[in-house]
């Protein structure tokens, strides 16, 4: 009964590197409504297995709705088998988007871990229009073998710093090894982060230390994605908040990552 449940056609489903795919959906009716940080809730099978839909950040919403995903389990494996012309049941866009930087902000630092890079391409697509903004991406990945489509980030004028666990690309180590690449100023810098909770916890500390404003795009297992079941709640300093409706984007300083 939500306005935003639609059956759309798959335009392409490209394998970018082992386990990482880019799904392109022809979704004109919703294309223009999508804001950076919002997500779509996809039905990966018409059957009961897996039982829930699966949530995915919108990676890009220019001509098509694009999703950048990693095949980690049954649902994403089913997605990886989708082909041009297949239909897909899409619920969305849903969720609270990133708050775009105010006029006083001069530097936007996007800190991503692994697949957490997904919501940042659409964010840079939007922010590149603001010529006064310096966009920086600190990206931490497992290994260089996973070559993410950094090209598009570059085209958006994003400064990119990479760290990999095995050092096969960029600096060896976690993303915090890249913090020294930025000169944060509380008044003019804003941080956006998305990735595993332990990583975002580190980013939270870093932001606190330099008293930076910031936002975090969080994850939790979801059923409805409409704020109906209250199943995707996480802890925040303001009590339990639903990731699908109150989030997925939260004030970085309010999220309690210890769960």
């Amino acid at each position, binding site marked *: *009964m*939500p*306005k*935003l*449940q639609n059956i759309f056609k798959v335009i392409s489903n490209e394998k970018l590197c082992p386990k990482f795919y880019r799904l392109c959906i022809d979704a004109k009716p919703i294309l223009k409504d999508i804001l950076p940080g919002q997500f779509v809730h996809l*039905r990966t099978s018409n059957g*009961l*297995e*897996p*039982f*829930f*839909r699966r949530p995915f950040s919108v990676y890009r919403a220019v001509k098509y709705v694009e999703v950048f995903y990693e095949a980690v389990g049954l649902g994403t494996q089913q997605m990886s088998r989708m082909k041009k012309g297949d239909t897909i*049941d899409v*619920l969305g866009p*849903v969720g609270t988007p990133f708050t775009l930087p105010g006029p006083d902000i001069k530097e936007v630092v996007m800190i991503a871990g692994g697949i957490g890079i997904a919501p940042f391409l659409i964010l840079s697509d939007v922010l590149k229009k603001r010529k006064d903004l310096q966009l920086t991406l600190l990206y931490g990945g497992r290994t260089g073998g996973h070559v993410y489509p950094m090209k598009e980030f570059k085209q958006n004028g994003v400064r990119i710093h990479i760290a990999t666990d095995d050092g096969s690309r960029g600096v060896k180590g976690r993303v915090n090894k890249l913090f020294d690449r930025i000169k944060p100023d509380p008044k003019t810098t804003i941080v956006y982060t998305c990735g595993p909770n332990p990583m975002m916890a580190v980013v939270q500390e870093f932001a606190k230390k330099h008293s930076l404003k910031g936002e975090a795009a969080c994850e*939790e*297992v*979801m*059923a*409805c994605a*409409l*704020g*109906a*079941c*209250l*199943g*995707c*709640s*996480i*802890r925040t300093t303001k*009590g*339990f908040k639903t990731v699908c*409706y109150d989030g997925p984007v939260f004030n970085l300083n309010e999220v309690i990552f210890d*769960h």
Partner: protein
Amino acid sequence: MNLSVKIGSATFNNPVTVASGTFGHAEKYYDLEEVKKLGAIVPKTVTLYAQEGNPPQRIVETPSGMLNAIGIENPGADGFIKNKLPSFKKIGVPLIISILGHNDDQFEQLAKKFNDVEGISAIELNLSCPNLGHKVLVAQDPQATHRLVSKMKSILRYPVIAKLSPDVTDIKEIAKAAEDAGADGISLINTFTAMVIDVKTRRSVLGNFTGGLSGPAIRPAAVRMVYDVAKTVKVPVIGMGGIMTAQDALQFLIAGASMVAVGTANFVNPRAPLEVIEGIKEYMRENKMKDIKELIGSINNKNA
């Protein structure tokens, strides 16, 4: 074709509603024109005082179903009446308000609060929510069920529906106790208490340790309980448990349910309730039925 059904003094245009806790009415998302087609709406259970609910993780997928341990997160009666009820009323679909008290007195206060409210059709007593750390649920005890339903009937000016738990030895006994106490309707089933263990961490996946099992996995058990209850009581029964499609809903109606509620399915296919309504009409057309009453309880149970 007449699809309307009655529970006590309340009339519903069709027998399809949404199960409590599975339909959060977010104006910004829902298409009101579609929601208007529902026979009734049952909002999430309301308690006397606001509850923040259980710690995460609150839900987990299971084979053909899910566990939930939400802990009845809700704004409390006053908060609900002030901030949520108005928008529910705006929809214009009959409302069945689900209430739960942690003791008789709380139930009593809840009843009085909702007596003072206009524009609701019935009250559903959640006697069966398994996620509040009670040792024994009211719905597991015929005496307690009888006592509470009688008290609610003596106070409430609205029809009273008793919602039962499947975690019982004899569902017929509980249903009978509720009917004897004056319940205008019986709704079932709530979820089965259950748990999933993460073998990596050796902890229960749910923050609340146990949760409630729902979805298609439990449907065959739900159909049988609805059949047993429908042939035991004279008051109307609202059947639920794993309804995903019209075919599923028809099983409950044929078994004797006067209404059906779509729950977990809303999360997988938010349009399920509307598809169920359409499918029931189609089935009645194919079978040349003019009134839903011809369908309700139409099971051929020679081999029972």
